[in-house]
């Protein structure tokens, strides 16, 4: 993968999925990033998996990131892999913190199940169409999205037997 190859992919996505889908490309330190609009993430990943002349058939990782103070703040990365060409492509989309919604890719790549749940858990991004959109690592009754940059660090009470009933939301 080089910068030219990335531009060719972006061009093919524009032609096949839609002109406004690709919002930018970035080739930095050997890592190719394709910026796409949030509502068409699923279409782009589906196109890259099935119809592109150089298919990207595997999704290795989904991760969320908070770009505070940049707007829109949240980013979701899809690390695509082609095992045949031993090459990687990163599809990235950006959403704001107010009611962030992205279509799910679980039906295309079942591996995204846990990973999208983790992004929801940590950043509050709702993956529309995900069969089981619940918290995965934090407790079910937890409030807030801890990996956002404006979420304070520390101050979490440590739960012991003696202080558990004194903590908020105990048996409410």
């Amino acid at each position: 993968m080089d910068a030219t190859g990335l531009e060719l992919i972006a061009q093919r996505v524009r032609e096949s999925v839609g002109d406004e889908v690709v919002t930018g490309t970035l080739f930095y330190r050997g890592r190719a990033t394709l910026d796409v609009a949030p509502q068409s993430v699923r279409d782009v990943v589906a196109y890259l998996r099935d119809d592109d002349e150089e298919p990207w058939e595997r999704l290795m990782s989904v991760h969320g990131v908070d770009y505070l103070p940049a707007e829109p703040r949240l980013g979701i990365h899809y690390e695509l892999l082609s095992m045949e060409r031993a090459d990687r492509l990163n599809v990235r989309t950006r959403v704001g913190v107010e009611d962030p919604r992205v279509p799910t890719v679980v039906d295309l790549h079942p591996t995204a199940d846990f990973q999208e749940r983790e992004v929801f858990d940590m950043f509050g991004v709702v993956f529309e169409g995900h069969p089981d959109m619940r918290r995965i690592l934090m407790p079910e009754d937890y409030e807030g999205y801890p990996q956002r940059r404006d979420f304070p660090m520390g101050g979490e009470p440590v739960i012991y037997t003696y202080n558990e009933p004194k903590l908020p939301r105990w048996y409410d």
Partner: protein
Amino acid sequence: MTDERKPTTGRVGTMTEALEVPYRERERSVTMEALGEEHEELLTINIGPHHPATHGVLRLLTTLEGEIVRDVKPIIGYVHTGIEKSCEDQQYWKVIPFVERMDYLSYYFNALAFCMAVESLLDEEVPPRAQWLRVLHLELNRIASHLFWIATAALDIGAITMLWWGCRDRDLALDLFEMSGGQRFHTRYFQVGGVVEDIPPGFEEMTRKFVATMYTRIEQYLSLLDRNEIWLQRTKGTGNVPAESLLELGVTGPLLRATGHPWDLRKAMPYSGYENFDFSVPVGTVGDNYDRFRVRIEEMRQSLRIVEQALDGLPEGAYITDNRKVALPPRHELATSMEALIHHFKLVTEGFRVPPGESYIAIESPRGELGCYVLADGSAKPARVHMRDPSFVNLQALPEMARDHLLADFITCVAMLDPILGGVDR
């Protein structure tokens, strides 16, 4: 109820007679036909989070039909400690001890993934000797991790001797880590730009002794397990998942290679000088639990070969980059050089700054693709560190592996999946 069903109490013929009937045949009584109508309903039971067979605090909500597993829902998060969040409050070089504690059996791999991600953002070259030392320690760590896996996996199946043998031999590898890095666990040996120290005198001799010992020890494990009727019947033909389903679920590492798919990042996308080493990628044939066992055993042998080659061809030169903006100056320079003192002071108090950008680096850990994503915002602390932990992703294959198998085989599947809950929950 048919007459063929064996009585559950009393003597079951002679020992020879019992052994002549294959294990699967004897267990036929648990199929639904034999159980009759009263067992047709589903039963949901909870396994874990505090159960020795779940390898940590993994909770498995299991739906049973008789003794057959129909569905499994892994529930995780019991050891979630927010390491990724803590990393955002640490300088880059102080993040390394944090990430090492994620997957606590393969700490060298976590450190390498993070260091390589930061090095790619800094555009920093790693000297050849440092790369060789890294490979040396990575492969020793892979052996140690697989040894602990075989120790606990065999324990789950009831082979308790293997637990002692595996832990005994892993201690030899930990002795080596202690010698080079000062710690047995979480050594913080890898640094951004190289490794923290050169290997001490005597390390090579100890390592060669370890390698020679391990070749024989692996033969001993095989003679203990590979001809054991119980081991073979518990592992052969259980937990098969086709390669295509595993790939869709994102499973990598020995689990994928056991199905015959030779995907190994060390070969496919070499990093840290792996292209200079001669080793082969062991693959299985059908992808059952037995293949997973054999693939990991063979991987230990290949790792020993790499360790030998790394010792033989260890290049001379620096063990860490000479870029003083990133790596600490040598201790002896501090007494004579003003610049060294300033660099030391700046690096220890403020740390080094990384230009803005993001990076995703994937390496082959003992459990599969270990990816590290780092977002740098130009300050001395990372804005986001994310680990794509193979245990976390591979755990999604557990329902596929265990479905329509006996509950006892389900335990074997968990053992052969080799999830490290510290890596799953982070």
